C-alpha cells in the first residue's frame, strides 16, 4: 500500500513540476500512438465498411481471420517488424530500426485488425438499416462506404479509441523495435518496464498513473469533441 501511495505522490510530483523527462516521454508516447491510430484508422475504417457491404467468395473466412488477428501477439509482431527492418532484412536499407517510425509501424500492424473488426461490426448494423435506401438511390460503392462511415462516425470513434487503448498500453513490440533508447525511443510503457527492472517501483507506479491519466484524458476529450452522449446524436 505504501508503495502505491509513494508512486502516486511521485507521479503527482513529476506532473506538478513538469519534469522534462516525463514531458518528453509522454509527448513521444502520444506522438507514436496517435500517429499509429490515425494511420490504422485510415486503413481499417474503409476496409471495415468495404467488408460490410461487399459480398465475395471467402468473405466469412476473411471476417474470421480479421477477428482472429485482433489477438495478434505484440511480441511476435515486434519480432517480425524487427526482422524486416534489421540491417539484414528487406527494409534494412531504410534505417528505421530503433526509431519512433519503427514503433509506429509495429503499432499500426497490431491495432489495424482491431479497429477494422469493430468498425466492420458497427457498419454492418448501419448497412442492414440503410441497404434498401442506398441501393434504391443508385449509390456507387464509394458513396455507400463514405455514407456509412459518416453516419456511423460515433460508433467508429469507439473503434479508433479501442485501437488507441491497445496502442498506448503496448510494450512488447515497441520495446523490440524501438529499443527503449533514452531521448530517442523511450515511451511511458517502456520507461515503466525499465524502472520496474531497476527496482524503482515508486517511479514506475508514478509513470503508470500518468499513463492511465493520459488514456482517460484522450478518451474523454474525444467523446467531448464528438459529443457522443449529447441529445439525439449517434
Amino acid at each position, binding site marked *: 500500500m505504501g508503495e502505491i501511495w509513494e508512486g502516486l505522490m511521485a507521479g503527482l510530483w513529476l506532473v506538478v513540476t513538469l519534469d522534462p523527462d516525463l514531458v518528453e516521454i509522454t509527448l513521444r508516447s502520444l506522438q507514436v500512438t496517435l500517429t499509429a491510430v490515425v494511420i490504422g484508422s485510415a486503413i481499417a475504417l474503409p476496409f471495415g465498411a468495404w467488408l460490410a457491404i461487399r459480398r465475395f467468395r471467402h468473405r466469412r473466412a476473411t471476417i474470421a481471420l480479421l477477428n482472429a488477428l485482433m489477438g495478434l501477439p505484440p511480441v511476435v509482431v515486434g519480432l517480425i517488424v524487427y526482422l524486416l527492418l534489421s540491417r539484414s532484412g528487406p527494409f534494412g536499407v531504410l534505417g528505421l530500426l530503433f526509431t519512433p517510425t519503427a514503433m509506429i509501424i509495429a503499432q499500426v500492424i497490431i491495432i489495424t485488425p482491431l479497429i477494422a473488426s469493430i468498425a466492420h461490426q458497427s457498419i454492418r448494423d*448501419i448497412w442492414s438499416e*440503410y441497404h*434498401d435506401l442506398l441501393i*434504391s438511390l*443508385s449509390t456507387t460503392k464509394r*458513396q455507400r462506404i463514405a455514407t456509412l462511415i459518416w453516419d456511423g462516425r460515433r460508433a467508429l470513434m469507439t473503434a479508433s479509441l479501442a485501437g488507441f487503448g491497445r496502442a498506448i498500453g503496448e510494450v512488447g513490440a515497441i520495446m523490440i523495435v524501438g529499443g527503449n533508447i533514452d531521448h530517442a525511443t523511450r515511451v511511458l510503457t517502456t520507461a515503466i518496464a525499465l524502472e520496474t527492472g531497476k527496482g524503482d517501483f515508486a517511479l514506475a507506479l508514478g509513470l503508470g498513473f500518468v499513463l492511465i491519466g493520459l488514456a482517460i484524458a484522450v478518451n474523454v476529450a474525444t467523446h467531448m469533441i464528438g459529443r457522443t452522449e449529447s441529445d*439525439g446524436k449517434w
Partner: protein
Amino acid sequence: MVTSILPLKMSGAVVKRRGKTLLGPVDLTVSQTGFTIVMGPNGAGKTTLLRALHGLERLSGGQVQWQIPLRDTLQRQAFVFQTPIMMRRSVRDNLAYPLILHGTPKAAAYALAADWAGRIGLGRALDQQAPQLSGGEKQKLALARALMRSPDILFLDEPCANLDGRAIREIEAILKSAQAGGTRILMATHDIGQARRLASDVVFLMHGKIIEMAAADAFFGAPKTPQAAALLNGDIVE
C-alpha cells in the same frame, strides 16, 4: 427533350428465394400516367412486385424493360418503404442527401430541403435528428425525400400502414400533388378506402400472381374474380 423512362414492361417475371416462388410469372405494363394501386392479402407478393419493378429484387426469370437503359432509370425512380428508412442525420440532411449524391450543390440542396420541409410541415424541425420524428413525420419525410428529385415513377410500399387519419390525409394530399405534377405512382396498400380514393387502376395479386387487373371504376364496381369481390365485401381473403 428528355425521353420518358415509361412505359415500363414486366414480362414473365419470376422471383424465387431459397427455391420458393414469391412472385410470378407476372406480366405487367405500367403506362406513362396514372395511379396504380396494388392490392392483395399478406404474402400475395405486393412488396416483391414493387421491389422487382424498381430493381431491388433480382429476377429468377423474365425481365423488366424500361424505355431507356436500366442503369439510367434508377435516378429517375424513387421508392418509399413501409418502414421509412431514416438516415442518422438531421431532417435537412436526410432531404438533401439524394440531391447532393447526384451532384446538386450543397447550398441549392439545402434550400430545396428547407422548401420541402415546409411543405410537409417539418419546417421547424429541419435541425432535428430524423430518427427522433414520429411515425407519420418519418413517412412524410421519406416521401418528400423521394419526390424532391421529381422522379418519373414512384413506388410506395404501404406507406400509410400504422398511421392515423390525419397523417394519412396529409400523405394522400402529397401523393395527389405529385401525380398532378406528372409522377407515375404505384402503391401497395391494404386499405380499400384509400385505394378507392387514389386509384386510377388496380392490380390484384394472390399467391404471387396477378389474378385481376382493371381500371379502378371497373374493379370497385364489378370485380371479375371471386377473391376480389370477397375482399371488397370485407371478407377475409387468404
